[in-house]
Structure formats: structure tokens, C-alpha cells
């Protein structure tokens, strides 16, 4: 058990790095997912097809394949994903600016993959709004923008918050994969390093790592359950 105390800083560092990845990837996925969702509900058929194609591809690929593409395909194209070295942001998230690109590759893969699910969550929210609502809004003479802003989106937001939450939880769990793709020092890589290279006993390390992930996922899941129950009552 002593490894938990001796190496507490390693565990804490891993936790912090995983949290950083999750935070950045969540932002990326939410933005990209919103764009794809807009594409999928747009009135222009080719854009809709583009959105559908994106979702079909990324929903049916294992994240592992996306990661491989990012980690081996991008270097083959001579890219180091330097566009992610955003000034200011890399002061807070120091890994963004490092010369080793794997953090950025992992971020790209995770965002691309999660965006497909974010899009589906948002779209299912819009679909959950009864058609009569938007029809009534149109009959009142609201424009498309007003219709979205005052009638559809406020209601769809309620319906999509729980699925969005599950997507984010899933993403946190998915982020465990990045440790196997060259990102050094996140929780999963810490597990590998401490047990194989560090030679520490397996059980305490496993407990430490598990606790690290459970701290992130379980409270979020409980929160979602509460929101879901309250919404069920409200309806």
C-alpha cells in the first residue's frame, strides 16, 4: 500500500493530465459536434449528407483506429498538429506546446471521435421537441432564427443534456486509451509505468488508478441520474 503514499505525486500528476485531456477534448468535441449537428439539420442536402457521413464513419470506427490514424497517419503526412499550439492556452495546458506531438494527436483523435456522439445527442434533443411546437412558432410568424432561439433550442437543450452527459462520461473513460499512444504521464500510462518499470506491487497501483477514474466518472454519473429523475418528474 505504501506506493499510494510514496508515489502520490505521480498519481496526482496522472489525474491532472487526464483531466486536462478530458477538458480540452470535451471543448473540442462540443464545438465540432455542434457544427456537425447544424450540418445534419440544415436544409441543404449536400451539407446534410456530409454531416451524416461524418457521424456514420466515426460512430462505427473503434476509437483505437482513430487514434492510430492520428498517431501514425499524421506524422506520415508530415504534420505535427502544430495548429493546436494556441498561444495563451498552452501556458495553462503545458502539454499543448511541447515538441512531442502525441498529446495533440490524442486530443485530435478524441475530439473527432466524441464529436460524432455529441452531434447525435444534440440532434436527438431537437428531434424530441414535438413538431407542433415549431409549427405553432411558424404560424405565429417567427422567423427560422427566432423559431430556433425561442422555441426549439430551449426545449431541445433539456432533452439533450442527459445524453450529452453520458457522452462526456464515455469520453473520460475513452481518454484512458491515450496512455497507450505515446502520451506520457496520464493515469493509464502511470499504471503501466509503475507496475512494469517501477516494479511496484500490482494491487495498490490498480486501486490508485481506479480511484482516479472513479473520482471523475461516478459523481458525474450520479449528477446525471438526479437530473434525469427531476426531468422525469417535471414531465
Amino acid at each position, binding site marked *: 500500500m505504501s506506493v499510494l503514499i510514496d508515489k502520490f505525486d505521480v498519481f496526482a500528476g496522472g489525474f491532472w493530465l487526464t483531466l486536462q485531456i478530458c477538458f480540452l477534448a470535451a471543448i473540442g468535441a462540443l464545438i465540432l459536434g455542434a457544427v456537425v449537428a447544424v450540418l445534419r*439539420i440544415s*436544409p*441543404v*442536402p*449536400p451539407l*446534410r449528407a*456530409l454531416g451524416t457521413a461524418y457521424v*456514420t*464513419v466515426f*460512430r*462505427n*470506427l*473503434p*476509437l*483505437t*483506429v482513430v487514434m*492510430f*490514424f492520428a498517431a*501514425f*497517419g499524421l506524422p*506520415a*503526412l508530415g*504534420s505535427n498538429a502544430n495548429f493546436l499550439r494556441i498561444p495563451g492556452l498552452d501556458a495553462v495546458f503545458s502539454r499543448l506546446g511541447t515538441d512531442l506531438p502525441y498529446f495533440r494527436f490524442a486530443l485530435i483523435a478524441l475530439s473527432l*471521435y466524441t464529436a460524432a*456522439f455529441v452531434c*447525435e445527442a444534440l440532434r436527438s434533443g*431537437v*428531434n424530441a421537441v414535438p*413538431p407542433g411546437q*415549431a409549427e405553432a412558432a*411558424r404560424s405565429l410568424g417567427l422567423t*427560422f432564427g427566432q*423559431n*430556433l432561439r425561442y422555441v*426549439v433550442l430551449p426545449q431541445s437543450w433539456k432533452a439533450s443534456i*442527459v*445524453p450529452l452527459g*453520458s*457522452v462526456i*462520461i*464515455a*469520453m*473520460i*473513460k*475513452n*481518454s*484512458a*486509451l491515450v496512455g*497507450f499512444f505515446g502520451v506520457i504521464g496520464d493515469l*493509464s500510462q502511470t*499504471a*503501466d509505468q509503475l*507496475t512494469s518499470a517501477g516494479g511496484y506491487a*500490482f*494491487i495498490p497501483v*490498480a486501486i490508485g488508478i*481506479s480511484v482516479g*477514474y*472513479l473520482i471523475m*466518472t461516478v459523481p458525474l454519473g450520479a449528477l446525471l441520474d438526479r437530473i434525469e429523475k427531476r426531468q422525469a418528474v417535471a414531465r
Partner: protein
Amino acid sequence: MSQQNSVLYDVPGPRQRRITLVSSLIATVVVLIGAYLLIYRPLADKGQFSMELWGPLIDPSNENFTQVWDRLGVGLKHTLTAAALAILSSLVVGTLLAVLRIQLKSLTRRRFTGLATPLAYLLRGLSVLLSAVTRVCVEVFRGLPVVITIFFVARGFPEFGVSFDNLWYLVIGLTVYNSVVIAEILRSGMEGLPGGQAEAAAAIGLSPAQTTRMILLPQAFRIMLPALISQLVVVLKDTSLGFIISYEETLNIGKQIIGVLGNPIQVYAVIAVLFIAVNYSLSKLAQFVQHRLSRGRKTAGTPAQQAPATALISQAEGAGGN
């Protein structure tokens, strides 16, 4: 699509149709130019379309073609074996777990009136404790990334002197995670049934075990079938994590091929197409089943099919699988 549009847009008139047509053309051109500049050009500049890189994968006359596809076939076989075993075992374990949790829950409400007081208290305490333990187990394994579960299984078992084939580590790791998820799906299916079902079963004299087996489980399976199928897609996707413990599944084989031929983009593209084909048809199957379910058997007595909401959530969770 048409239903989608009817929510947000009116049926387009002649002017709107013209606008749509023109903007479609513009959008197509923009998308094509974007694809050319952002995807085709970088690939072509690096010579990624050369036959040297693609040949072993698509050209039957290439010297490496048969060997490459033999290896990929082996990988596919391993992937499907692992997926089938994991699906089977997680279905079995998941069903048992769901039944166990339901039974324990009903046990905690029992008062054991016929027994001596201390014994009754002991039994009640025991059932509460067991129920809490299973709940914690479920929460823990649901909250852990499946990567970590597989990794722990592969590292932990040899630690205790038990060692298997890599295949079994992968199957066990996947089962641990997915059986818990399936158990939750089934449990929410059973709890979502109207209370009258269980009451009626009790009224005609079925024991709790019989009630679960004959009344609750079949209906839960029916309602939750779409969610279950999408969970199966997740399992199939998750077998690709076998590369962590160097199980020879498709991706790992792909890695070996790349090591020899040095064409990562091409090999991964082919593997991606394979995965998409299989998973897409499975998702279509899930949609078809859901469609059939919502259409069929709409008698007054059957409970409302509230599958869509739960199915969606579990699919989102499904991302978590991998």
C-alpha cells in the same frame, strides 16, 4: 429526413426550392474544393496514392497481396472470435447479474415474519448488505474505462499465478465491463415494466424466481433489444483494444503489416472500411429491430415501448465502451 425537416421547416414552395437547389450546388462545390484542398492535396503531395503503397492491399497481382490478406483474415477471425465469446459471456453474466440485483432488491423489502426475531434481523441485514455490495460493484466497473479493465486483467491474473491465452484476458476484460452495462440495461427494462405484471404473476401463484424468468425477463429483453444490439456493436469495437495486451486481432496484424510495408494510412484505411462495414450493418439491424418493435404487437395490455430514450442513452454510454 422528411420527418426531421417537417419539425423545423415548412414544405418548401417554388421559391424556397430554387434557393435550396442553388445553395445545394454551391455547398457541393465548396465541399468538393474543401475535400480537394484539405484531404486530397496533402495526401497526393506526400505520394500516398502511389501503387507502391496501395498495391499490396488492392492489387491481386501484387506479390504481397495474398500474404497481406491472409494475415488480415487471421486478424479478422481473431477479432470476431473474441467479440463472439465476449458477447456471449457478457450476455449470460449480465442477465444473471440483473436477476440477482432485482431479487436482492425484493429481498430487502421482505420482513421474514415467520422466523425467530434475531434470525429475521440477520437475514434482513444480510440482504441489505449484499444488495449494497452488488450496487457498489456495478458502479465501480461501470465507471472504470474498459481499457483499464483489460489491462488490469492481463496484468493482475499472472500476478496471482493464473495465466491464460491473451484471448481470454481480452474476453474476461470485456465481459467484466459489458456484463455490468448489460445488467443495467436489463434491470432498467425490468423496472420499467408496469407493476401490474409482477403483481399478476404473484397473484397466479408464481414464485419470485418464476416471475423473473417467465414474466419480467422476456419482456425486458424485448423492450431493450435495440439497446442490447448497440451494446454488441460496442463490444465489437472494443475488441480492437486487444492490441494493448498484444492479442493478434485485426489492428495488431495491421501494425505488423505496416512494420514490413510502411504504409500506415493505407492499411488503416482498409481496416477502417472493414470495421465500418460490419458495425454499420449491425446498427442498421438495431434500427430495423426497433422499427419492428414499435410497429408490432400494439395491444392494450402491452406496456408502452419506451425503448428509444433508454436505447439512446446506452448508445451514448456505448461510446464509453471504447
